[in-house]
């Protein structure tokens, strides 16, 4: 898949691509945090170890950043 800087984007498509990217980035971050943070929270409620919640949250953030990097940054 060509890098985002090398794709030939027609000028009329360009605003749409940028706006889609700009609005989906915070959405990916939020959903990664909720999904894996929620999973971590459920795990910590189940096992009693409080540390799983922050681990899940940070893991969700890292995965969301990686998704944005693969999708928009290469």
């Amino acid at each position: 898949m060509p890098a985002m800087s090398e794709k030939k984007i027609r000028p009329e498509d360009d605003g749409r691509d940028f706006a889609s990217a700009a609005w989906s980035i915070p959405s990916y971050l939020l959903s990664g945090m909720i999904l894996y943070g929620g999973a971590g929270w459920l795990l910590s409620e189940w096992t009693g170890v409080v540390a799983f919640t922050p681990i899940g949250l940070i893991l969700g953030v890292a995965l969301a950043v990686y998704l944005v990097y693969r999708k928009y940054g290469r």
Partner: protein
Amino acid sequence: MSTLTLLAPGDEFTPPGLELFDAAPIIAGVSWFTKPVLLALLSTVLVIGFCWSAFGNPKLVPRGVQNVGEMGYMFVRDQVARPFLGKDADRWMGLLLSMFFMVWVWNLMGVIPGLQFPVASHIAFPVVLALSVYFLKIYLGIKHQGAIGYFKNMMFPPGLPKPIYVLLAPIEFLSNLIIAPFTHAVRLFANMFAGHIILAFFSLVGFWFLFEKLTPLGAPLGVIGVIMTIAMTGFEMFIQFLQAFLFAMLAAMYIGNSLHADH
């Protein structure tokens, strides 16, 4: 000592809280007909009246209301519809134009003297609009890309290595189907809610320190309150227009993404 105190003795300035948003029924007995409902109906009448008088009897060379109406139409078509919908923009202009003007008049109700309640600061109104766009998006996606194809295109964008998909597909699914309508509605609601509280707070500061409890030290604070109210009203009017534009733009983006999948 008492003339140097900021507040008159025995009085506390209480900032406005959530009681700003309680709405009492206007006609006794009809419990659902409250001020927000009346303002929503009024804005419907205003938008219909404006569009009818602008586009009802169109002339080739526009004059008067038709000129203003055409400016609004061109703005929505060029900034909201065409970037996201491309060739099909004209089909969706009715929906996008109505949504944009509706939300803008809803928001403007917050600064019109006498009315002064932004309709979108009751969560029900933005939620209904956002949910209708959400169901439209899913319906269009399934109709144009097939039920399996829609979810496959959404959750598995091409070009990523296979093992990543397991971790990232849930994030894509959650982001597109749950977070998107939620933020669509809450963005409008939170901006109008916060703006209304800010305006009420500064106006109350001005009124309290200048008229209710006038003290030598408190009067400059009241003047600051009045100046801030004027400044924040101007800022709020800009935010109202911007939020209406963003709401319509995101609706166009979601519809456009459903019609043609991301390539």
